[in-house]
Each structure stands twice: as structure tokens, then as C-alpha cells.
């Protein structure tokens, strides 16, 4: 009586290539063969696979295998060993150097000095990356004003306003909408202040200040 478990067809047909190359384990081989005996499809498939294997082998097997030439691989291994030896030499030199605690202390002290020196000498003051409304280099002579106009002020009305006050736009608008206005050269500080008051009270002016006053409010 055959005690072997019957193998499902799908499983058996999958294993046929390895039945043909004779690499199935004993039990597995017998089970596949048992199935193939009673299965026409598997027998036909086995025959086809043998046919395919033999043909494919015939096609590709004749490629001549050259005699082993180890010159290239030996050169690569030599280079590899050379690199490894170089690394080892460095490591052993470091290990040798670090044997004395005085040397370690010297190296540590040097590193510390370099770090401290760098920290002390490194420039720490940096120019501000922002601007203020009153920030200016050459405008602080009393003839210039910083003004922010309301967005609803039309170009025409702006022109009229500036003409009335004897002012002219010399710069702007900045990213924040600030204009720099210049007064006429003949204008005194008192006249400028009157113009400034007029500007400050105008409903279309949000902010007005002389450049030489200092920080923004």
C-alpha cells in the first residue's frame, strides 16, 4: 500500500523543473513522480521541459571556458591590501602616539586652544537683517521725512498734497510702504514742522516723522 500523501496537481507541476534537474529531495521526488504517473498533463509537461532543457543546454553550453587568469584579481587584491595596510599604519601610529598621557594632554590642550581662539576671534557682530522706519545713512540733516500714506490716497490727491506742502518724494515705497519725502532747501525747521503737523493730521497719512528724530514710534 502506498502511504505517501498525494500531491495536488498545481504543486506537482510547479516542481517539475527541479524534478528534471534532479535536485528534489527523495520524498518530494517520489511524490511528484507518483502524481506524474497518473497525470497526463504533468507527463507531457515533463517531456516538454526535458526537451527545452536539452535544447537550451545545447545552445549555450559550447561557450569555451578560458583558463583562469588571476592577474587582474591579484592586482586588485594587492591594491586592497595596500590600502588596508596604509589604514593600519595610521591606526598604529595614532595608538603609539596616544600611549603617553602627556602627548594626549598636549593634543587635547592644542585642540582646546584652537577652539577657544576661534570662538574668541570669530566675528560675532552682524548687521541687522531688518530695517526700521527711521533707519538712514545720509538723510539725517533735517530735510527729510518718513511718511506712510493710506492705501486709498489716489495719485492725483497725493500730488496736490505734496505740492501744497512743498514736499517731494525722493525714495520709496519700501517693503512696508514707507516713502521718504524731501523738503525744499529753503524751508526752515519750523516750516518743516508745520508741514509735518499738516501731514500728521491728514486723514490719508498713517504715519509721518522727520528722519533725524531717531527710532520709530
Amino acid at each position: 500500500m502506498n502511504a505517501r500523501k498525494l500531491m495536488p496537481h498545481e504543486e506537482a507541476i510547479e516542481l517539475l523543473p527541479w524534478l528534471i534537474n534532479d535536485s528534489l529531495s527523495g520524498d518530494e521526488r517520489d511524490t511528484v513522480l507518483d502524481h506524474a504517473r497518473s497525470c497526463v498533463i504533468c507527463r507531457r509537461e515533463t517531456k516538454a521541459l526535458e526537451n527545452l532543457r536539452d535544447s537550451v543546454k545545447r545552445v549555450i553550453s559550447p561557450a569555451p571556458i578560458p583558463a583562469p587568469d588571476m592577474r587582474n584579481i591579484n592586482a586588485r587584491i594587492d591594491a586592497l591590501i595596500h590600502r588596508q595596510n596604509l589604514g593600519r599604519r595610521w591606526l598604529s601610529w595614532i595608538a603609539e602616539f596616544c600611549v603617553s598621557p602627556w602627548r594626549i594632554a598636549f593634543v587635547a590642550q592644542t585642540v582646546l586652544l584652537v577652539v577657544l581662539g576661534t570662538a574668541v576671534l570669530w566675528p560675532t557682530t552682524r548687521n541687522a537683517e531688518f530695517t526700521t522706519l527711521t533707519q538712514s545713512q545720509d538723510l539725517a540733516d533735517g530735510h527729510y521725512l518718513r511718511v506712510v500714506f493710506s492705501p486709498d490716497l489716489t495719485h492725483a490727491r497725493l500730488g496736490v498734497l505734496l505740492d501744497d506742502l512743498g514736499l517731494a518724494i525722493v525714495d520709496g515705497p519700501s517693503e512696508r510702504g514707507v516713502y521718504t519725502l524731501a523738503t525744499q532747501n529753503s524751508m526752515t525747521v519750523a516750516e518743516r514742522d508745520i508741514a509735518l503737523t499738516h501731514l500728521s493730521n491728514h486723514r490719508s497719512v498713517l504715519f509721518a516723522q522727520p528722519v533725524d528724530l531717531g527710532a520709530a514710534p
Partner: protein
Amino acid sequence: MTNASNANDLALLYRVGRGDRGAFSELYRLYQPRLYGYLRRLLPDPTTVEEVLDDVMLVVWKDARKFRGQSAMSTWIFGIAYRKAMTALRSEIRYQAPLDRSTDANAIADKTSPDIDWIRAALVHLSPDHRQVVELTYFSGFSYAEIAAIASCPINTVKTRMFHARRRLKVLLPALAGQAREHDRERA
């Protein structure tokens, strides 16, 4: 592979791991024919084959100490060769495919008695993964479990790849698969 030969292989590899160049030469001569044959069947250019073979053996030299004996040594070495061959195959396909794969698949299938060139052309039409499984099974004689170890994939993946490779070859080479008449009937 017998236990004795596996033990000899392991002893040889142990010596290689200790930097024994003589042992490495011995190992090289032992595996060169099999590896060359394996790579030559997969890669069309003999110069590439020799380069890849040297790449494989250089990895063997460098990693001999890392081999833990979880598989047969031949499986380990072929695993390295598999990965190197896959890289080379993919770049071959990328750069030389228009030449190698120019043969129309239908034209291959139309041949009732395929000759050498037609079989070669049919094999080129398989994907690198499928070709590798066909090669490792039919030429190198590995079991499906060994191929799974070589390709670092589950056993079922090996079986599936073989299934697809067989199906593709049947379509490409019906005469070889013993299906010429059926195929002719279908086409008629």
C-alpha cells in the same frame, strides 16, 4: 554537494579569510569554470563576464570571514554572483536592449524548429529574474531552496518566476515545448 566537499570548501574559505593567497588561488580555480559558465550564459559580452567574475571573487576575498555557514559555500558564492549578474544584466538591458531584443517575439514563435539563434533570442526576451531562475535550475542544477537562498527571496517567488519563465518560453518556443501543432492550430 556532499558533507565532505562542503567541509573542504569551508576549510578553504577559512584560510582565505585569514588572508591566505594560495587558498584563494585554489578557490578561484575551483569556482572559475562554474561561475564563468553561469555568467557567460547570462551576459553576452565575454569582457563583462570576466570583470563580473573578478568582482565576485573580490567580494569572496573581502567577506570570507563573514561567511557563517548558514548555506553551502557554493550557494553563498553564487548569491554574490547572482547580485553582480543582475546589476550587469540590468545595465546591459538599459544600454544594449535595442540590439539584443530587436527580434520580434512573434517571429520567434513562428519558427517551427528553432535553431540556436532563435533559442538565444527567446531567452533574451525573458526578464533578468526569470532568466536567472531558468539558468540556475537547468544549467547550474540548483534546487529551488538553493535558488531562493541565492536570490535572497522566498521559495514561492522562485516557483512563481519559473512558472512565468516557462509560460513565456512556451509562447516563444512552442516547437521546443512540444506544442507546435496546437500552436499552429491556434494561429490558423
